[in-house]
């Protein structure tokens, strides 16, 4: 068996980091950063998700293959969002003048 057992201490540390991230994201939501609020919120959420994936889901200790598949999942989600949003963002460029 070549599985890696993550120590309890790591789990607790990650847990505290996640709680801190939650607190931070709530606090930051009340600060007016104009268009950057959503960016900050998503960055913090992304960081929290990465912590969960890396430690709770053991991806940090997994094979390159698993790492690649995780990346593929998020890349494909990005493709779906990015390409479709390209449509909605560029529609307005064309304005009919009757």
């Amino acid at each position, binding site marked *: 068996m070549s599985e890696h057992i993550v120590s309890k201490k790591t789990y607790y540390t990650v847990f505290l980091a996640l709680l801190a991230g939650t607190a931070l994201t709530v606090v930051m939501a009340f600060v007016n950063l104009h268009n950057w609020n959503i960016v900050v919120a998503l960055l913090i959420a992304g960081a929290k998700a990465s912590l969960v994936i890396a430690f709770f889901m053991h991806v940090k200790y997994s094979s390159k*293959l698993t790492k690649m598949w995780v990346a*593929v999942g998020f890349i*494909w989600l990005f*493709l*779906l969002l990015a*390409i*479709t949003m*390209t*449509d*909605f*963002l*560029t*529609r307005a*460029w*064309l304005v009919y003048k009757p």
Partner: protein
Amino acid sequence: MSSATAIPSEIADVQWNGERLNYLNNGHGLKSWLLTKDHKRIAILYLISVSAFFILGGIFALLIRINLLVPQGEFPADTYDRLFTAHGVIMVFLFLVPAVPAILGNFLIPIMIGAKDLAFPKINLLSWYIYMLAGVILLYAIFAGGIDTGWTFYTPYSTSYSNSNVLLAGLGIFVAGFSSILTGINFIVTIHTMRAPGMTWFRLPLFVWAHYATALVIMLATPVLAITVSLMAIERVTHVGIFDPAMGGDPVLFQHMFWFYSHPAVYIMVLPAMGIVSELIANLSHKNIFGYKFIAMSSLAIGIFGFLVWGHHLFVSTQSVYLGLAFSFLSYVVAIPSAIKVFNWTATLFKGSISYDTPMLYGLGFIGLFLIGGMTGLFLAALGLDVQVHDTYFVIAHFHYVMVGGSLMGFLGGLHLWWGKMTGREYPEYWARAAMIIQFVGFNLTFFPQFILGYLGMPRRYASYPPEFQVLHVLSTAGASILGIGLGITIFYLLWSLKRGKRAAANPWGAPGLEWRTTSPPPTENFYETPVVTWEAYEFAPIETMEVLGYPGDPGRPTQPVHAEHGTED
């Protein structure tokens, strides 16, 4: 019949009827089939049910063609809507998507990579039951009132106006999606973790590569369809405005989400057939396939690029024209890996020692018809031209050339190539060739006139048409009848061969793949010993070196003929 001592001890308790133990006679009765976890038996279950749905879908196709014999239409427009939707839904979700992966892929992938079974046999059986559940739901939706939205379920018609069984159909498609997801997971995991010793990635048969790419597409695309039909159902029940422009929603969002699945789904349908064609071209040219790595990688490339082109279905919607430009370009790009395959197959044929057996005829048919289907696809990918031919019979003809000319031809070619392996019996060669030629003629007569119809402006999904189109429609209906007869002959002689066909040899084509190194039909565990692969893919060796691995011999026939031109008399 020799002495009883030659009977392997492990099968001594099986009623001995002169045949060696294989997956077909290892267990009898309905229960042994319905509760089986053997991938080969599950493949047979799929074969039976998928064929039944195919016949049903074909009957709907003939009804469509009958309606279009006369300009005003034989049936009321309402009925006609239900007919073409039934044809589309059955053919897409119950035939084309599962046909090759769930039947031939299921049967062959473990054998080709030298494994005893797929990684999750129970999930494999579950996927068949889920498929049957989806089939029952969809059949109920079709026969208890029908669906009139077309297989694309475009909103807001499907959510606000249609009075047909849209909800049930959505449920059926959702469930069918689960079935293909489970099959996809099984394939990916099996190919990753269960390859026999020595079976490296670049020794995998191209059939396996094609299925690997297909499984990737299934896994990444199908869930989007599931959420799309879920949202459509929620919208239909609650009218909260998800896709309703009257309430702030955008129906084009539905189209984006739908085609994010349904365009890659086209590759789910055709990639496995391409894998089959790679196999049969190489095996029946008796020649190492030209450009192995290019074919393998082009499968992956098609899988990936297939995700980036869905917007060419939305050229005439409100989709941004700037994104349309990008989609148009990317749609041209995806033609490249397909062309790579066609060139490599052709190069494999060059100077090969070709035997024109039925599978090869289907392979050649595939190349020719897929070429026409693919090239007319470029017409449709062109942003400007698509505005003219969008939603006309040109589109219908195009995707039937790819789906019928491609997927169906590939599927039938594969079925013939491996029929002896699957059933232990040979199909009758003369009838098979005749049926293939009839199908080829009938197919072209059906769909070539539709290119002209579409170019002249005949829109799809209309029950009636101006009288000047009648000649072409009659030709098309005539072709459909011929195609139907051809397919009927195939179904007939394949059934006939189950009882009367000659016994199949282990390796009738003199092919090098692992599936030819076990008996026909294979034993339940696929091989008599775990194979160790020491050769490259498609390394054609002298026939006498191709032995059945670890085979202990038949009681009456100590050594089974490994290679014989046409098997042995029963």
